[in-house]
């Protein structure tokens, strides 16, 4: 009989004891986490995208808890049961563990399965249905049904949306140093400092910039998309119930970057329609002066470029009579 088998006979059922403790603590930990913590894990459930993000985070937590308990139980068990004074020749720790086939195989199999599952789950979540909250550039590979039609219609001023229509609502996010503004092509192309979107609606955020690189980050919506000048970066999400959210710029963009945020609202469809039609009417004078709705805008050459662009391009207006006279 070898020394190892002798030790195992003298100290039986270590693995079984640890496994039982690990299973009990893991189940209790996961259940407690599910009940008391999981519903409050950011970013919440204001949109389908956010809800899926929360689910992903919770799955990671639920998997991490057994791993955490596994490490702690093995460490504690080793310290308590296999200390040198108590047992100078342990069967399942120290040098013995390095040659213990059960320990080696268990560790390799468990960690391999865990990591492979997370890799597979992450890939699935990213590609199949969770990835659309991030900006996908001007030609999204993963777009909801009806999104392409709505985007095309928005560009020619024919996008429509009404409560219950289930149409995708395009909203343009315009970043500039140092504020976001929002255009609603479905409602005459008015521009506003307020971001309000209807509940239970798929939103197509078309994100661009008038100057440097910014990033549109509506955390509670599960949306984050870079705002690049000259680029239309499209991100989708589907809102659920009414609620409030915060928009922040998440790309360091200059002195007032830290102040480049605003609050937003998901409102009921009726309230949103009321707000949008009222704002469309209130802003109509200024909307008529805005450039035609487009996915991107080139800063004007008439001085509005800040001296950065060549003065040979005037996409906003052919009127160049400013400076001719004092206003009355």
């Amino acid at each position, binding site marked *: 009989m070898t020394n190892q088998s002798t030790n195992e006979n003298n100290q039986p059922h270590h693995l079984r004891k640890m496994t039982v403790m690990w299973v009990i603590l893991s189940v209790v930990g996961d259940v407690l986490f599910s009940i008391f913590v999981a519903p409050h894990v950011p970013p919440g459930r204001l949109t389908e995208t956010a809800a899926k993000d929360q689910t992903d985070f919770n799955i990671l937590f639920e998997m991490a808890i057994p791993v955490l308990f596994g490490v702690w139980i093995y460490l504690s068990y080793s310290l308590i049961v296999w200390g040198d004074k108590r047992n100078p020749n342990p069967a399942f720790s120290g040098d013995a563990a390095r040659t213990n086939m059960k320990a080696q195989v268990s560790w390799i199999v468990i960690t391999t399965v865990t990591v492979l599952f997370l890799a597979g789950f992450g890939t699935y979540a990213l590609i199949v249905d969770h990835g659309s909250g991030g900006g996908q550039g001007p030609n999204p590979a993963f777009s909801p049904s009806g999104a392409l039609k709505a985007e095309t219609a928005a560009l020619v001023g024919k996008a429509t949306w009404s409560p219950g229509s289930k149409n995708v609502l395009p909203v343009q996010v315009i970043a500039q140093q140092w504020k976001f503004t929002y255009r609603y092509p479905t409602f005459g192309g008015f521009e506003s400092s307020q971001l309000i979107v209807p509940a239970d609606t798929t939103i197509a955020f078309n994100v661009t910039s008038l100057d440097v690189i910014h990033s549109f980050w509506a955390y509670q919506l599960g949306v984050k998309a870079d705002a690049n000048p000259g680029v239309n970066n499209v991100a989708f999400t589907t809102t659920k119930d009414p609620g409030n959210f915060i928009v922040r710029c998440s790309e360091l963009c200059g002195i007032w970057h830290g102040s480049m945020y605003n609050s937003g609202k998901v409102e009921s469809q009726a309230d949103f329609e009321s707000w949008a039609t009222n704002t469309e009417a209130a802003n109509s004078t200024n909307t008529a002066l805005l450039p035609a709705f487009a996915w991107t805008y080139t*800063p004007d050459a008439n*001085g509005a470029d800040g001296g950065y662009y060549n003065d040979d391009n005037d996409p906003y207006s052919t009127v160049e009579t400013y400076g001719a006279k004092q206003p009355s």
Partner: protein
Amino acid sequence: MSLTGRLSTAIGLFLVAVVLIVWSLLAFLHPGTAGGYTDYTVGHTAGAPVNVTLQTVGAIGSGFGEHTTWVSYLQKDPTTGKWIHDTSMTLPANTVINVTIDQYDSGSPLRNQQWGQVTGTIGGTATLNGKSFKVYNSYTGNGVGHTFAVPGLDVSVPLVGVNGNLTNICGQAPCGNLPHNVLTFSFKTGAPGSYNWQCFVPCGLGYLYGNGGPMSTLNYMGGFLKVVA
């Protein structure tokens, strides 16, 4: 070194590290004092409006630091009546602020005409040389030189430019009886807090996208409103 000596050295270094960390945290949490803010709360009667007078100048000239060619705001000190190069103010909360801006700079079309619309003021209007307006078409007239905007309060007012072809445009602050537009508007401060305000016209000519230089330096084209109870 004896054990006591080593122990004393270790404890001493640890205490120094703790002090440095605490000092850094406090410095981060309290980066400055009230100094540098022009205080409009001194002698203010609760409920009474506060009058703020500003001016904008295309080139601040000598006497206000090394950037003599930079565009800048100036503020009239409410106590002394002197023009000062300071863009931070302490204002009372929930109070009507009557703002008068003497705009001495020329203008141009806005990069985003959205800033041509008056927002966040009482009545949604401002006056240009005594005439009320809600929207200014920056593609006409002299364009817009600057804006006064407090994003946190959704306040934005376009400051219409003077004729850029004039030969007597002010180039030395403070400007006096030279061509300028007078803009007035009122807004109400909200709850106590710190709000930044800024110009949304990229008027830092020669700098990246026009938003460097004076647009990115405190006391030129932006500052803070410290609203206190």
